[in-house]
């Protein structure tokens, strides 16, 4: 089974993208599998909306475990099952909380195991700052690391917000040689292209 990992800094909308993308692919109810730090897997069933209000929060590091959903996508004869994995946000420096540091280590570990990496940037935030500094050091390194040996997609999220267009232009200028997909986890804008790319990569 293909693993597709969603990575990015805190609060760029990784979980929102996961839930919204699952909805876009036709799922109404989710079976979210959460892998806890001791290796056990907890499974919970939620409707998309319930999951959204439970899992998506305005605070940093809402997601501290790897949580995944299975998506069935049509492929050739038959279906390809894709495991879409949501990860904990990555920051530049050393985080004071051991729990979050462990969560980040697990995220890096998951990158090595994934075939497809979806790297999400907050286009609105980058547009707001107006310069390249909205893109953190972690994003550069993440892109460089994740690009090797696997499919890599760069998503400029929050395109529904004002200022996101400038952000998108900045991202495109900064990450040359990488295809950037403008999306909005809220309005599902740009999802068609992302799905096509993911399917091709499976």
């Amino acid at each position, binding site marked *: 089974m293909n693993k597709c990992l969603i990575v990015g800094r805190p609060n760029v909308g990784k979980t929102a993208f996961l839930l919204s993308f699952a909805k876009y692919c036709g799922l109404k109810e989710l079976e979210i599998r959460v892998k806890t730090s001791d290796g056990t897997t907890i499974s919970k069933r939620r409707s998309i909306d319930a999951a959204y209000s439970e899992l998506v929060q305005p605070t940093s590091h809402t997601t501290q475990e790897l949580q995944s959903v299975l998506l069935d996508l049509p492929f*050739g*004869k*038959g*279906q390809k099952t894709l495991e879409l994995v949501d990860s904990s946000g990555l920051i530049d420096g*050393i985080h004071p909380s*051991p729990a979050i540091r462990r969560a980040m280590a697990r995220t*890096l*570990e998951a990158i090595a195991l994934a075939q497809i990496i979806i790297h999400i940037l907050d286009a609105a935030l980058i547009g707001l700052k107006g310069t390249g500094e909205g893109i953190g050091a*972690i994003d550069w390194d993440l892109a460089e690391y994740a690009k090797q*040996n696997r499919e890599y997609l760069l998503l400029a999220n929050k395109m529904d917000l004002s200022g996101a267009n400038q952000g998108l232009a900045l991202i495109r200028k900064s990450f040359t040689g990488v295809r950037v997909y403008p999306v909005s986890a809220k309005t599902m804008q740009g999802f068609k292209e992302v799905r096509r790319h993911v399917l091709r990569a499976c």
Partner: protein
Amino acid sequence: MAKSFSSSREIYQELAKGNISTVEALHALRKLQLNPMTPAAGDSRDNQVKSDDALEELTKLIGLEKVKNLVKEIQAYVKVQELRRQAGLKTEPLVLHMIFKGNPGTGKTTVARILGNLFKELGVLSKGHLVEVERADLVGEYIGHTAQRTREQIKKALGGILFIDEAYSLARGGEKDFGKEAIDTLVKAMEDNKNELILILAGYQHEMDRFIRSNPGLSSRFPIVLEFPDYNLDELMQIAQLMVEEREYVFSPSAKECLYYLLKSLSTNYDENSGNARLVRNIIERSIRRQAVRLMAGKAKLDTEALKVLTEADIKAAMEDTG
């Protein structure tokens, strides 16, 4: 950052402990990945190797040159369709339902099983298993029962291959026979589950030809027809050789000669089992048992050599059993 790590595990641990920042961890991981000492095998390469495995298994079979070529053709076709899809070009739908024609023991089931593995590795089928059925498994006892039973078998085969042996017998009983109902259910299932099921109809050459002629809708739905010719004498001998080698036995020279003439006399007598690998297997397995009896009855010392050799007497005794 200057610190170098020998394994990615070490990097994760350092990060979790707070000894290095995430950026440093990523740097270290990248360095480790660029290092050729830790080769990361690509997934697609894996698939390539596996589908070649399935193909190699096929190549090992004796004879069947036409079948092998066709399978290679199918493999190339599937791969090219996939590449075309990736390039955004128009693709043909993959219709891979097949008809296998040939006498018993000519390798139909064996090839079907290999195809299942091959299609699984190519990503055409999700499971690639083979469900072997015959008329009795599909046809029911009362009206409505047949559709139900047939659907059950189809359900079992989803993600793999449904192999219907002696498929012509489904059309045997005429209009009122339930076999017709089974055919209709199968045709419908082929349309409904066209992405998850490959159907193979197998049977004798003539019977299958008649069966397909009598059901005009079938030939268009089964674009691939493979003919399994009878094995000739040389091929049968090669098969016999392979079979004994696999079982770690050897023929004595006279045993080999004896088997040769035996198979030859069968083929000149137009025995329906001539050209049949199953017959060869039966003879060999029986002579292996005969050898065991001979060894136990004799007083000679049983060294490795004696345990391995099949003699002329073993083959003859085996043939007498067969009649």
